[in-house]
């Protein structure tokens, strides 16, 4: 029964067996791989935020650690000194100001929050009426209802999540200093061993790219965080001059939202303006607060002083890319994604520029061409 085209029975059986084994092992590998990825996902679920924060904190503390490190003091000791300084500073601050009155603050917010929302809705309604007068084709859209329901659920979420987020903050307070310590002490060693895994041919390129990326990234992160801190401080001082309540919280919101370019400062302004409108009315103080947010904090301090000093050293992305990065980051990870989208986009930008410089190294047919591109 052996012909040239047809296989013998034994061959068919072997082929059948091999195919079955291949399919079965494929399914087994696939399913085990998906369980493994699922396991990895659950195992690393809560670690993304502490790792990210400790990375940022270690970028911030690195210059301080280098300041203390010297001939007599080694790196570990210097890290301990920096930790000691920071903890004593925070302790001193708490000692002077006193522990924050969390309960009172929460209760006041619970009482005031609906009032502020109501005022905002009223203002929006008036605006809507005016708009409908001028553009009658705008259908009557129940904006008030939507906002009030959204704000109710938001407040409920805040009140419900506070104990849980307190627990998370507790775990962060434990994990972040630990991770930061190891990042500060061993980051060089970790990165060196990672880079040494690259093949010989691309080693120089990878090393160069890493040097550029780390320089730019550290400047970017330090610049951004310092910028947010200073803007928050300026807003705090500016608001403290008025009778507005919750000035510290508003300053924190303004500083944190300042981390998101273009869109952040506008969003960060809204709660302050709403509270000012509700509590103080459309008077001189309201205009002063608007002035603090827009003219002093954003234009004067941020655009004219901070950005030229802190950020301009870092390679600038085109504003279009920045906005795209913010939108895509927001789609992926929410507000956190909006904040880290821009640095990630600039890392990609730096990597592309550096590889273009080294593209000769990338070209595998380079042996067969002259340096001017002629075929040998």
């Amino acid at each position, binding site marked *: 029964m052996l012909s040239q085209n047809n296989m013998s029975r034994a061959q068919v059986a072997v082929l059948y067996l091999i195919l079955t084994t291949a399919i079965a092992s494929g399914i087994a590998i696939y399913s085990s791989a998906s369980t493994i990825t699922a396991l990895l996902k659950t195992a690393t679920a809560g670690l993304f935020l502490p790792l990210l924060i400790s990375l940022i904190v270690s970028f911030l503390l690195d210059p301080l650690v280098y300041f203390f490190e010297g001939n007599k003091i080694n790196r570990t000791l210097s890290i301990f000194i920096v930790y000691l300084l920071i903890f004593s500073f925070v302790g001193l601050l708490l000692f002077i100001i006193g522990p924050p009155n969390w309960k009172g603050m929460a209760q006041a917010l619970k009482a005031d929050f609906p009032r502020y929302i109501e005022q905002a809705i009223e203002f929006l309604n008036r605006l809507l009426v005016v708009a409908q007068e001028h553009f009658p084709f705008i259908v009557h859209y129940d904006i008030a209802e939507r906002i009030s329901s959204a704000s109710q659920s938001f407040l409920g979420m805040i009140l419900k999540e506070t104990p849980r987020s307190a627990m998370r903050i507790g775990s962060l307070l434990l994990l972040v200093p630990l991770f930061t310590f190891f990042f500060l002490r061993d980051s060089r060693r970790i990165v060196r061993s990672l880079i040494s895994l690259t093949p010989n041919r691309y080693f120089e390129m990878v*090393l160069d790219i890493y040097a550029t990326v780390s320089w730019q990234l550290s400047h970017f992160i330090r610049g951004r965080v310092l910028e947010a801190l200073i803007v928050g401080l300026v807003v705090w001082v500016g608001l403290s001059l008025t009778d507005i309540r919750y000035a510290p919280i508003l300053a924190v919101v303004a500083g944190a939202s300042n981390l998101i370019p273009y869109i952040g400062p506008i969003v960060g302004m809204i709660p302050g303006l709403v509270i000012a409108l509700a509590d103080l009315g459309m008077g001189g103080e309201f205009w002063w607060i608007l002035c603090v947010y827009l003219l002093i904090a954003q234009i004067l301090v941020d655009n004219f002083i901070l950005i030229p000093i802190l950020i301009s050293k870092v390679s600038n992305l085109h504003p279009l890319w920045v906005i795209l990065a913010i939108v895509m980051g927001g789609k992926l990870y929410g507000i956190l994604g909006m904040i880290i989208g821009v640095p990630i986009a600039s890392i990609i930008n730096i990597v592309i520029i550096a590889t273009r410089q080294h593209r000769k190294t990338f070209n595998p047919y380079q042996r*067969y061409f002259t340096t001017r591109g002629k075929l040998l």
Partner: protein
Amino acid sequence: MNPFWDNIFRRSGYEQTLTYFLSTMPMFKMLNKRELTFLENIVHVRNYEADEIVFNEGDIGSGMYSIRSGQVQIYNLDDQGQETEQAILNPGDFFGEIALTASRPRCASARTTEPTVLVGLFRSDMMEAVRRHPAPSAKIMLGLNRVISDRLLQCSLELTKLKTQLNDNREQLTDA
């Protein structure tokens, strides 16, 4: 002492280490133990197979290599693709030092001829070291400078010799 015991107790330890290798290099002779350890932390040890390319002519260079073991051939390619060998380098030699201080294209290609271990010192690491630990970095750079100056001196002596030779030849030609 018995050579057997000598082998166990003396040879195998310190002389196998990277620190010892670095201390034997002429440019790092002035460094003390502490500075050698510092240097050991900024160099990269790379393993190459036989006949592997280290870099090609025209690549953007980012640092120098010294040979710990093995052999490296330095060569140029002309427009026809013909190789001209410039040098064969052996353990203890170094090459590519032009790229250490500024990013210049490599002026020749380098290839290993046998399994080789290279110790690379790269610009980005050196720059960081200069910024953060100026004193040992200055000593490293001074040692390099000394060796390169020696080479330059030899080159200019060679050049003068060749020039006088050329003039002699020219005079002989005009005489003839």
